[in-house]
């Protein structure tokens, strides 16, 4: 493969009436990633293209896009695995600021709303750490891999139909469970009260799009199910931990 065609979604909502796909023929180089292709367009073909980037090593979460029909991090996606035709869209169901740059405000607002921070009952002394067993620590391994890229949020049908943007969505609920499951956290009641409603866990219909979309192979639905079990356990008088 010497050449590859990038079809890139373009829209400036203040100027364009309709979105369009612009096509660019790029030189293929061994090891080329989709993000490198976008930079090639920006620097050698069309300086008007807008997209987000930062680490280029799949840890910062800036470049999640909808590439050839799947959620992918542009920086980690090898062009050679996609063939000679690459179609790049912004993450669907989010407002477009320009081209591939979407408005993540509802995503961040919902993340902030679940109180994504440790809430221990007592302040600890700076002369020692809170103890945590290796087993307790590894019980949150999967959740803390989240890079907040927003792919799960964009992929969730419950988000799509929620015009108010009040449904927390998979990532925020994953983080709610990450803190509930942390042996150092003592705010279970408050956390369940925050998410045990129609803006939280009960709007998850276990569709698993989130787990499918996640570039870090996290199963958000599983975490949400744990929150549901905890919430139900409270109602029927079982204590979870």
């Amino acid at each position, binding site marked *: 493969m010497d050449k590859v065609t990038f079809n890139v979604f373009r829209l400036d909502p203040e100027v364009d009436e309709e979105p369009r796909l612009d096509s660019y023929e790029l030189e293929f180089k061994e090891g080329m990633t989709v993000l490198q292709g976008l930079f090639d367009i920006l620097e050698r073909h069309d*300086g008007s293209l807008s997209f987000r980037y930062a680490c280029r090593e799949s840890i910062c979460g800036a470049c999640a896009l909808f590439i050839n029909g799947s959620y992918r991090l542009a920086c980690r996606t090898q062009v050679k695995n996609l063939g000679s035709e690459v179609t790049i869209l912004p993450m669907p169901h989010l407002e477009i600021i320009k081209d591939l740059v979407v408005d993540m405000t509802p995503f961040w607002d919902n993340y902030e709303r679940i109180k994504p921070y440790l809430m221990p009952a007592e302040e*600890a002394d700076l002369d020692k750490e809170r103890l945590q067993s290796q087993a307790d620590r590894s019980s949150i391994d999967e959740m803390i891999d989240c890079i*907040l890229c927003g792919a799960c949020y964009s992929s969730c049908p419950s988000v799509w139909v929620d015009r108010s943007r009040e449904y927390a969505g998979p990532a925020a609920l994953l983080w709610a469970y990450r803190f509930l499951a942390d042996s150092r956290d003592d705010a279970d009641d408050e956390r369940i009260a925050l998410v045990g409603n129609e803006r939280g866990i009960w709007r998850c219909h276990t569709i698993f799009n989130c787990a499918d979309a996640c570039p870090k192979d996290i199963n958000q639905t599983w975490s949400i199910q744990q929150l549901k079990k905890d919430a139900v356990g409270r109602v029927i008088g079982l204590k979870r931990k």
Partner: protein
Amino acid sequence: MKYHQVIVVGGGLAGLRAAIEAATAGHDVAVLTQVHPVRSHSVAAQGGINGALANMPDGRDDTPEKHAFDTVKGSDYLADQDAVEMMTALAPKLIRQMEHWGCPFSRTDEGTISQRPFGGGGFPRTCFASDKTGHALLHTMYQHIVKHGIRVYEEVVAISLVVEDEVCRGVVAMDLQSGEIIPMASDAVIFATGGAGQVYRPTTNSLIVTGAGHAMAYKAGVALKDMEFVQFHPTSLHGTNILMTEGARGEGGHLKNNLGERFMEKYAPSAMELGPRDIVARSIQTEVNEGRGFESQYVHLDLRHLGSDKILERLPGIRDIAINFAGVDPIVEPLPVQPAQHYTMGGIDCNADGGTAVAGFYAAGEVACVSVHGANRLGGNSLLDTIVFGYLSGKNAGEYVAGKEGNNKEHSAVAAAFEQAVKDIEELRASDGPMDPSDIREEMQDVMFRDVGMFREEGPMRSAVGKIEELKDRFSSIYLRHRGKKFNLDLYRTYELGGMLEIAHVIALGALERQESRGSHYRLDFQDRDDENWLKHTIAYYTPDGPRLGSKEVAIGKWQPEARRY
């Protein structure tokens, strides 16, 4: 005109830590950040954060003093020893505080924070969260920004620092989403904008690590210090140059040449793979240059003998990266690694309080040069630097603004700087010359790596200085491909390039002037350290004709300079 008592520029670990300290002291604080805070380059730190917690059975005798000594020795005695001792003394408390705030550190059998050995350290001293420590710390830090409701201006960058009569009055900012230029007055400004790695390629650094803060401060008349000291990390993944953590060697990984030899035997017979980074990086490059590498480009980092359990538990992040980016699984194959630019030891000349020669202007983290890293930073000390000097600069800026509330509100110097910035940006936007900024960027990165890199010599460096001057000249007649306002990457990246050329000039000239070898600065024509003439910091001031260099004393304390042996 907007106003906040304290403006923090940069949303990585140092900036967020500073913002939390100033805000919890009751001040009105705002953070400006080019990317959402969790996208900042701190997120990519892997191996860990150093502190003498003495949690491990073979590390019970560790103390902040021993940590300070290792840091000073690692710095090749260019670090200021008072600042180093302050940092290592604060380390255990501030690391535990991150644990209290929720950071998911890996644990020992007793449930305390686990620690691993790192290069140049005498003890297992590096606290870690598997091999994603920066990610764990940055998310925890951002969660505390959320908890305290601190104002974050996302995708808003500072484009000039406003200084009048040696007093800081605020910044002028640009909203990347709208392209709007915004005057922002404040009583104190803290720069925590990260390093300048993109001046080089290859680099392990994120694409946003462009030295923008260095350039803004320098242009505003603040001195830069020790910029010629640039760290090359020994082990970046061949091809993409993504970091392969020093923790891989800390866990027992071996470096091997094409003869299968653990070649570090020749260069650091007792520390072996855990020598300091400057020595290991030069050793790898020497093996490659002398024909004992692979494809004349890289050596092997062999982890196979660690076994899959250890790799999956302690090094899952780099395994994923190696599989995804190089198609290599370190459980079954050795990793191809080569040195790449990694860290900017130099930076804004400041003291251990984070303060500079400009009242109300502070710097913290990689953009700052206190100096605690001197000529070579030890692995695990950069994350520590961010939380210690983030904390101190936030605390001190808070104390500085107390009683000054509203002093700089609607300040005329900010209004004047705003008008100048609008003019400058419009001029840049209208650029219509023959030169392509992308070519200039690539030529700068290549000449810096080749001639002001791991091995330096007068002739090539002299021509590199000439090349940078030529590139600066060409930069004055560039063209822009796009003139729009909204999210104009072409415009902002070209703005960044203007600053990077200034930084490259300072690095190259400083390296040319310093006629000795010390830490990361290794001269083929002056291979020994020369304490008599060069045990001093380089200071660089901006002039329109290029950097004006001076010097400053090094604070020597308990430890007299001696030869570094590992």
